[in-house]
């Protein structure tokens, strides 16, 4: 079990480094095992370094940088163990336009192996979707699904 964890950790760490760079357009992200020698069940630390900034604690990141770092980790987990589908509920809300574009492109490229269901208010994210559903409440309090576009 420890060996399996180690192997998963190495692979996910590599995936995180890659997805961090493509979501931030640069910089460096890394997972580190705390105190590995002392404690075989050591916790994991996340190191994030947006482009041009110093290495720092994830606590000091901005709202948008935190969301983007979390998404990079999620993508790395999916790369290692693709789950049948993934639901993202307004994860693009804290992102600026440039980061929304990078996020939307990343999700589209991942959608070859994992189906994504993305709830969003952002027009940029909608544009990259292959199917679009609207939810309306023409009758107050009653949700209705309307298919807007289905490729």
């Amino acid at each position, binding site marked *: 079990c420890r060996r*399996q*964890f180690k192997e*998963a*950790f190495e692979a*996910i760490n590599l995936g995180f480094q890659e997805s961090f760079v493509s979501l931030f357009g640069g910089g460096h992200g890394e997972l580190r095992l*705390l105190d590995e020698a002392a404690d075989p*069940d*050591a*916790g*994991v630390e996340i190191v994030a370094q947006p482009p041009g900034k110093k290495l720092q604690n*994830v606590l000091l990141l901005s709202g948008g940088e*935190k*969301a983007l*770092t*979390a998404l990079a*980790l*999620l993508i790395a*987990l*999916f790369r*290692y*163990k693709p*789950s*049948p*589908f*993934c*639901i*993202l*509920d*307004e*994860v693009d*809300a804290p992102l600026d336009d440039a980061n929304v574009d990078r996020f939307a492109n990343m999700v589209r490229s991942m*959608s*070859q192996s994992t*189906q994504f*269901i*993305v*709830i*969003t*208010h952002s027009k940029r*994210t*909608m544009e*990259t*979707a*292959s*199917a*679009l*559903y*609207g*939810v*309306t*409440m023409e*009758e*107050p*309090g*009653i*949700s209705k*699904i309307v298919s*807007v576009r*289905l*490729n």
Partner: protein
Amino acid sequence: LKLRRIEMIGFKSFSDKGDILINENGVTAIVGPNGCGKSNVSDAIAWVLGEQSAKSLRGEKMEDVIFNGTRSRAPMGMAQVTITLTETEPEHSNGNGNGNGNGNGNGNGAANGNGHGPRDIVVQRRLYRSGESIYLIDGRPCRLRDIQEIFLGTGLGPNSYAIIEQGRVGQLLSSKPHDRRTLIEEAA
């Protein structure tokens, strides 16, 4: 496994049937004004996968998922969510999902799991105001464990990292170092 369809009736604000077809690949976007029912769709999927906590479905008690009525409609007595999945490569056979009890589901099930091409799996969950709750696979009542078995090994479940609730994307980071380890262990 691929998700093909989500059907909701009597679940939260879906007093009328809600029906969403999902493409085999690609991104499906769900859009709409505030309060129209988008996050209720995500709750529906977490619920049919076996979610046991009313609080993580934003309610106080599990009964809160049953349509509660509006000014012009009476509350309903039952909530039901159905998801249809296709098993693309013929993994291990699921057996025939033997149920217990005599549920009268839609019964047609799918091609059996011995590899004759893709087969559909229909997973359902129902909750009555009486508190009775039923799980069904291919129309036959089953235990929650049977549903969990379908998704075993895929990392999918009501609380898996594959469902990111509104406003909670940062939580993947902010948990303690040991929680992050569990995240990796979950994927291992």
